[in-house]
């Protein structure tokens, strides 16, 4: 009889979630509950077509804030609420009077309710996994607790989630039609303006052209960390624009195996990876695991990181549609080589600044504040996909590599990368400055 081969990685995830043969009977710690939910949502992001990087970043932000406020509510560490600090978040519901609350149950109920809503667009397998994981975790955290404690904790957790979800509803990013591609969009005139680069009909319009108008979290608005204009479009070989285009062309010709590995490692394509913001969430989870962090630390890191990633995409998209710059593949085929092909798939929206660079800069700024200037780490995010781990001397080193990966991939010009990282640093400072502890 033929046997079914199952990839080892999936078995590991299942065992981690308590579905494997080695599942422990003891109640999970609240930080374990939180990590297991993040493990699932990193899969759901990958398997939910609407989750382009900006949309994914928004979901990570609200999930992080919900988990954080649940942790505040159960008195974890010396955490203080983000209400009043982030845009438009009002005071959270007070805990029920005289009720015993259990931290793991509150966290489980909060995150389950938030995940169901924020990641509810997933397909049938995702829906099935959401239900099974929620049922399993709900049962395991309740094991041995008085029924009244479970009920009160569950109700309270759901109330926290409901408050956060109500707050999310009017931020401008709650409803995504047609995977974020508008039905109508007037393309800009002139050779320097963005032109579609895909052969997909849907992508003849750019992704989420109004995303930059969304309500931000920690920074005042999408325009807060604005950028100078990119180099003026020119086909003069002596111009800065042409020189940058030639740099992308030459990089493709001279790509080393290491450059290819870097480009592929950070490619983080939607539907084929946890997306770029999910990649940084994965990095944070690896750091927290390495540190043996508890719930308060997990909640603090995931909230601040989620917030800055969401702000980064709002700020980046604000500038992308302000400058509406043409992509390298269009320019190089026009000016240098009509048959030129970039290594990576060119994303369907304007070039400047680089989204990878802005969000990586913001993530590095926040995580450096939380983990230190020279926190070396090894990133194993893509091992399941056959991409080997990469090691970095610091979080900023990783961010810079993520940025330059887009030049190797033929996706971005130098200015979009350098100034994108600058924009990320600016945006990240707002989230880093949020007060999370007394």
């Amino acid at each position, binding site marked *: *009889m*033929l046997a*079914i*081969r*199952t*990839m080892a*990685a*999936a078995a590991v*995830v*299942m065992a981690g*979630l308590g*579905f494997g043969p080695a599942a422990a009977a003891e109640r999970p710690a609240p930080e374990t509950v939180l990590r297991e939910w993040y493990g*699932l949502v990193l*899969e759901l992001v*990958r*398997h*939910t*077509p*609407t989750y382009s990087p900006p949309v994914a970043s928004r979901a990570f932000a609200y999930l992080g804030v919900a988990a954080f406020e649940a942790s505040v509510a159960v008195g974890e560490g010396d955490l203080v609420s983000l209400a009043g600090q982030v845009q438009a978040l009002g005071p959270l519901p007070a805990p029920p009077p005289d009720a015993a609350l259990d931290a793991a149950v509150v966290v489980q109920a909060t995150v389950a309710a938030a995940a169901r809503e924020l990641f*509810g*667009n*997933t*397909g*049938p*397998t995702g*829906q*099935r*996994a959401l239900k*099974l*994981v929620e049922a399993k975790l709900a049962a395991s955290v309740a094991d041995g607790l008085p029924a009244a404690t479970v009920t009160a904790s569950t109700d309270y957790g759901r109330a926290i989630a409901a408050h956060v979800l109500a707050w999310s509803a009017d931020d401008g990013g709650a409803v*995504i*039609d*047609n*995977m974020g591609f508008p*039905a109508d969009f007037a393309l800009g005139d002139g050779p320097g303006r963005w032109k579609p680069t895909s*052969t*997909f*009909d*849907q992508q003849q319009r750019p992704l989420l052209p109004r995303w930059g108008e969304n309500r931000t979290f920690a920074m005042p608005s999408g325009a807060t960390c604005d950028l100078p204009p990119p180099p003026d479009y020119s086909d003069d070989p002596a111009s800065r624009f042409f020189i940058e285009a030639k740099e992308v062309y030459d990089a493709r010709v001279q790509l080393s195996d290491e450059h290819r590995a870097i480009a592929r490692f950070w490619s983080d*394509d939607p*539907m*084929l990876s946890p997306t770029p913001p999910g990649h940084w969430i994965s990095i944070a989870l690896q750091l927290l695991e390495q540190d043996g962090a508890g719930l308060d630390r997990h909640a603090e890191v995931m909230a601040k990181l989620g917030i800055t990633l969401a702000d980064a995409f709002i700020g980046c998209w604000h500038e992308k549609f302000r400058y509406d710059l043409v992509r390298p593949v269009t320019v190089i085929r026009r000016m240098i080589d009509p048959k030129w092909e970039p290594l990576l798939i060119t994303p369907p929206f304007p070039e400047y600044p680089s989204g990878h660079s802005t969000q990586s800069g913001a993530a590095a700024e926040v995580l450096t504040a939380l983990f230190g200037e020279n926190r070396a780490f090894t990133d194993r995010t893509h091992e*399941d*996909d*056959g*991409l080997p781990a990469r090691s970095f001397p610091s979080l900023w080193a990783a961010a810079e590599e993520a940025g330059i990966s887009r030049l190797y991939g033929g996706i971005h010009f130098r200015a979009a990368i350098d100034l994108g990282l600058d924009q990320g640093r600016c945006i990240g400072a707002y989230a880093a400055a949020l007060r999370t502890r007394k």
Partner: protein
Amino acid sequence: MTTMHLLRRRLPALLAALAIGVGSLISARADEGPAVPSFVDETAAAGLDSVYAGDWEYMVGGGAASFDCDDDGFPDLLLAGGEAPAKFYRNASELGGALKFEEGAASGLELDAVTGAYPLDIDGDGRMDLVLLRIGENVVMRGLGGCKFERANEAFGFDGGDGWSTALAATWEKGASWPTIAIGNYIDRSSVMPWGSCTDNWLHRPQGSGPGFAPPLALTPSYCALSMLFTDWNRSGTPALRVSNDREYYKGGQEQLWRVEPGKAPALYTEADGWRYVRIWGMGIASYDLDLDGFPEYYLTSMADNRLQKLAPVPDGAAAKPSYGDVALAKGVTAHRPYVGDDVKPSTAWHAQFEDVNNDGLVDLFVAKGNVAEMPDFAALDPNNLLLQQPDGKFVEAGDRAGVASTRIARGALLTDFNLDGRVDLVVVNRWKGAELWRNTGAGEGTGAGLLLKLAQPGPNRDAIGAFVEVRCGERVLRREITVGGGHASGHAGWWHFGLGGETEAEVRVLWPDGTAGPWHKVAAEGRFVLGRDADPMPWSPG
């Protein structure tokens, strides 16, 4: 001189002929667009009542098989039932008449857990056999005649395994008296979080040169195949195995093309060979030489990013490299969102098939559509597409005008001429809802004739799987590869249809699987002919 060399030498002349021929065939309707055929829903009247039922494990699959099992020439029908038993229908239609099917006595094919089915005469006895793809064990059913079948796993040495099988392709490797069958498998159905759990596809090769199958080989790596097709993509005479994979579940995967050469272990074409990295929600494969350059194009169904792949130009004197560009947008076959109704969300595409539905000499494309389940990011009311080819090679949507724009959550389908009137009809299997059957009543006066051809050769591979049939019609040479596989869990055997436009006769020839090019024969349009080796086309009529 090989067929390949001949093709290359004739390519410029063929291309020139294309421009001339298309103009002469279609000019009468150039201002009006393609003639739209009328499809009349005869599901109930014909006696079809079948639902592809079941929950999570039946979100994919839902195939149909058409084949003649009672030697009356009319294609009979098997529809997958999912968790319910499959349904077999004997074709009781009359020539050119209304469609009629009889559920009748048990055929033996009525197994549960069937996701799809493909007919092929495995043992070369002239009676059609079927492979039933299932959740659990796949089952080979040997045809006994009179539309009776019996399980033959043990007799044929076929290990049906225990998987979630969703794709099949078959070929006869050179020198073999027994077919090679590839079976595509999906995810590990026991897994709570099955992402990254794609299970092995299997290659069932003959034991020795046959009869009987050897223990299957695992086609690793496997990436959750939903369609497979043995196809001679480079006209080398040795088909390779195309596999379309569902990126929803694989990690590190992509579309695949396997070299399957006699006596050798299967080997993937790689980037070093020219294979381009493509990752889609691959669900179905349709192939046809649309531009008449000798090489098939491949339509790959997916979710919002359907592809029409065209082989990169082959330099003179060089071997073709498996490098394909996407021309779906250029040809108007992206079919990426509903074209009727208010739903603007992306479409979900499954079975695809090229056939000339209006007999204008230009092959058209049907795409079955339907949400996976209740995916809110995708259209809930997702009409099937019927894309009619125009003289310039671009396609135009006509599903609504033709009457097949159903939104019943389609999966598998078949364009088959059930009443042998020279017009291809349509059956569609729907998830959770009744299957649908439409009779093609034509596209009005003067829209052209249809030609039906059936291949027959002695010995194994009686139906000449792997052959190319060429039909010279005016100055054009239509060309189709005879395959078992592709589509979405749905397969056909028997008559192969060609639309001839306004021509009253055509020339036909067969490039047989062993590389022998048969002679050209003149045949009348609107005819049905059996093409045998070393014989003139034999006209066929029912009764």
